[in-house]
């Protein structure tokens, strides 16, 4: 796995769409898909991912994966992995997708993501235990359960483990700054609201306040 903090080791993706997975260690068992972003290279993709998926300090870990490195198996009864970058624009999907010619020939460790419930985000399930090429990995995932205790989702994504760029740098994801103005719990209107209510109800009874305001009130009530 690449480390985002070591800028020099980053590979340029050749594509400008990156899928982002996020994990809040207190809430999430595994990284789940947050969405995607466009960036000219992996270095900027990491910075954008932090802004888009971590600026509220909601993520302890981000995985940034170039879309060209992801393959989707849409229906486990039909064992074809097609590149996610092409699948997104396909209109006539019922023309069965062709196996990807440029797919991984060399054996690598694949990370497997699945959608457990329709409509919910893709989630990292496990890494395949042994290095396989894409065709073998697809075969293995669609013919039998690799890990028997994992439920078998209908939609799978595969990516070489080494293509995952991980950002888990605490200084970037949890900077030691007061950002309470960004959070709902950073606002406490209770006392202000009580004051405003009291003033409003006493005005309603006495109408002793400023002339301009009383006029507004009368206008509202008389019409």
């Amino acid at each position: 796995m690449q480390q985002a903090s070591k800028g020099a080791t980053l590979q340029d993706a050749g594509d400008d769409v990156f899928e982002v997975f996020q994990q809040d260690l207190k809430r999430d068992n595994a990284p789940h898909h947050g969405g995607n972003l466009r960036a000219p290279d992996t270095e900027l993709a990491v910075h954008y991912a932090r802004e888009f998926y971590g600026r509220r300090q909601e993520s302890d870990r981000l995985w940034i994966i170039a879309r060209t490195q992801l393959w989707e198996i849409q229906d486990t009864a039909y064992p074809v992995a097609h590149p996610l970058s092409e699948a997104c624009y396909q209109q006539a999907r019922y023309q069965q997708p062709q196996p990807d010619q440029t797919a991984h020939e060399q054996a690598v460790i694949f990370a497997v993501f699945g959608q457990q419930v329709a409509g919910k985000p893709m989630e990292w399930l496990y890494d395949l235990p042994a290095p396989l090429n894409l065709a073998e990995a697809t075969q293995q995932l669609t013919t039998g359960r690799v890990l028997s205790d994992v439920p078998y989702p209908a939609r799978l994504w595969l990516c070489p483990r080494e293509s995952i760029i991980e950002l888990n740098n605490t200084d970037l994801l949890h900077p030691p700054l007061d950002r309470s103005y960004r959070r709902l719990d950073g606002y406490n209107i209770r006392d202000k609201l009580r004051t405003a209510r009291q003033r409003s109800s006493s005005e309603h009874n006495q109408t002793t306040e400023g002339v301009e305001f009383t006029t507004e009130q009368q206008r509202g009530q008389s019409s």
Partner: protein
Amino acid sequence: MTETSADAQDEARVEEFRSYVQNGGKVEATDWMPVEYRQSLIRFIEMHANSELMGVLPERDWIMRAPTIQRKLALTAKIQDEAGHAELLYRLVEDLGKTRNACLDDLVAGKGKFHNTFHYTTKTWADTGMIAWLVDAAAIVSQHALRDSSYAPYARTMQKICWEESFHMMHGRDIVITLMNGTAVQRAMAQEALDRWWPTLMVFHGPNTPAEKDRDMQWHIKAKANEELRQEFLNAQVPRLREIGLIIPDPQLRYDTEHKRWLYSEPDWATLRAIAHNQGPASEERIGFRRMTYEEGQWVRDLMAYRMAQRQQHATTGHVPLKEEVHG
């Protein structure tokens, strides 16, 4: 086989799809979908994205004039959020087949649509509070309902956006309550702002179109009818406005306890229609400003394109091209 003829040949499949989404079925970006559904999604989400992007302009005007450092920080953070939401939404549109550049080109050419509230000018600081409170409250009502959208990537994005927006409304309400606890002049300023924004809020969710005539509801792109959303907004916000002494500038506004719904004066639909053609009070100014910043940012996009091309050429030939070779 072209898309259209494939589609025409398979009307049964379209019908199957329609009943699938009407029964709560979820669609992913990589699933097959009818051309009409895809185009409805593009139109709907593109307008949403444009609105997020244009919505920052009225607020941007107030960053330097915000009264305290805390307000400046909150306002800046809100603006960053809205611009971020625009980017998330443009990504959805791109995956459906219309590029972000095409959306932005349409927007700066005055062809793109964006929400009616962002076609008006702001006059005082109280407007900033009213927008953050009430425009965001109206938007949150719509966006909450969109979490049930048949298009799952959009529904998930709404979940994220709603969570990020939770503070916006509180930030606005805090501004308005603070003004109401201030001097008589400040209270008058808050009341004036409400008078100014209320008519635009009453048309925010669109006309009372019956669900069976609303194409977006038929596809289950949106899950709640316009009038239902407006009623939800009124239910939540009318008591909150009244309790702090604000007067809603609609003498006919009242709650019909028998039918359990709000009654109100007929909103100004003619103005809304004019705005739909980008003929609102501040439309030209806002689009002009967006065009200016878009043009000013051209050098950044050129540089990005150059770097991409340079890298690709280097990867294939080992030769690093000069800038002139990329941009002839």
